[in-house]
């Protein structure tokens, strides 16, 4: 029997009530939380992973983990923020694993698909097309996507959480298991790399300036 998204047994319930009921043994109450927060977690996961398949995996795993750890939730800020953090953590682990696997395949002696050795850190720089080619917005989006993929998992998480989702530095630091200053630096570094990758579009023609220089 189909119920309204925000109801259990026809009764509208808040996130806190849904958590309480789930803990009291009413598994169906968890459905309210899943249906309420899946889309926003998906959007974040897509931005972090860069593809729909991985994003869906992240969403499912995040809600499974949140259910398993629900006893520990104990009324933290709110369920949405909490599951979001779990999803970001899982996404970052997943990206790291995928990158490790990619690097392992591309190690010296492990030729790329075209038979040539590949430097994983050079992907963006080497594949950068000329400014003339990068005129259209679709190309700009593609270039940004590529630049995002070239960031380290921590940088990508930091920039997505900070500039896409508007998270506080402390919140990002909790996901990255780091301190506020280091997290701030990660965000700056990530934005710096993106700037460098997008220079042909942003029109400076110069590399991102190293900070605090005197002219």
């Amino acid at each position, binding site marked *: 029997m189909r119920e309204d998204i925000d109801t259990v047994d026809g009764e509208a319930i808040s996130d806190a009530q849904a958590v309480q009921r789930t*803990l009291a043994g009413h598994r169906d109450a968890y459905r309210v939380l899943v249906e309420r927060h899946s889309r926003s977690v998906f959007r974040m996961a897509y931005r972090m992973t860069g593809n729909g398949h991985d994003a869906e995996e992240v969403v499912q795993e995040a*809600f499974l983990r949140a259910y398993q750890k629900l006893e520990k939730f104990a009324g933290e800020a709110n369920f949405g923020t909490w599951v979001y953090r779990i999803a970001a953590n899982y996404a970052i682990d997943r990206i790291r694993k995928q990158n490790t696997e990619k690097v392992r395949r591309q190690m010296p002696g492990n030729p790329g698909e075209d038979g040539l050795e590949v430097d994983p850190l050079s992907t963006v720089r080497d594949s950068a097309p000329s400014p003339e080619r990068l005129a259209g917005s679709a190309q700009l989006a593609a270039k940004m996507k590529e630049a995002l993929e070239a960031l380290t998992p921590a940088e990508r998480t930091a920039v997505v959480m900070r500039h896409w989702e508007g998270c506080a530095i402390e919140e990002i630091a909790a996901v990255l298991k780091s301190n506020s200053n280091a997290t701030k630096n990660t965000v700056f570094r990530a934005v710096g790399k993106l700037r460098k990758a997008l220079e042909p579009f942003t029109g400076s023609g110069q590399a991102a300036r190293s900070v605090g220089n005197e002219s």
Partner: protein
Amino acid sequence: MKHRTEEELMAYRDGESRDRAGVAAHLEECPECARQLKQIEAVLSTLNALPVPEPGEDYGQRVWRQIAPRLPEKKAKWWEGLFLPRRMVALGTVAALVLLAFFVGRVSKSPVPDEGVADAHQVRERVLVVAVGEHLGRSEMILMELVNARPEPGQKVMNMSSTQKRAEDLVEENRLYRQTALRDGDRAMANTLEELERVLLDIANSPNAVTPAQFESLQKRIESNGILFKVRVVNQDLREREKAKKPSPDRENAGVKERNKA
């Protein structure tokens, strides 16, 4: 001129700069920093404009369908169940009745101490008798509705959800009254409430939607143990007890007169 750092420019852009006026003044004078800020803005705008596919209105339901079979049922701690809203209402009702009975007993003053204790006990019992009577009345109603309901011709599924919810509420109340009856040594009442509880649980645990055949089988179970008849008998007995316990106007007046004398 010393340029502003990238961190300062980004903090300014995010509205988190500690020296907002200072950075703003510097940007007025320094085209290089203004260009840097513009570039940061362009990069972050591009980032924000990156498309994210819309997973669809029913995405949450799809996720639930995928993960639900992998979620083990959580075992509730006994005290967690008590804080469910419906149980809170049942507990609250009983607690309020007990408090009321206690309070009424305390304030019913009597010139003779022994008589006072007896009065307080009677008032308390009367309050509980009324509450149990109402509970049995509601239970009788739900049983009557179920026994008399007939599926429409051609109806394939019968919705039980609202009846289930009512039965669930009654189970909670029933449990508390049964325990009270046991404590007071009222075995007959406790036995009937125990039988009623089993039937109410049967209703509360039945599927949300049942086939006419399943419904008929539930009706037979209700009818087979004669619970409806037993509930009526106990309820009638309670009404009589209540009537018998009500002090007659003469006795009340006599009490007042005696108190006045004292």
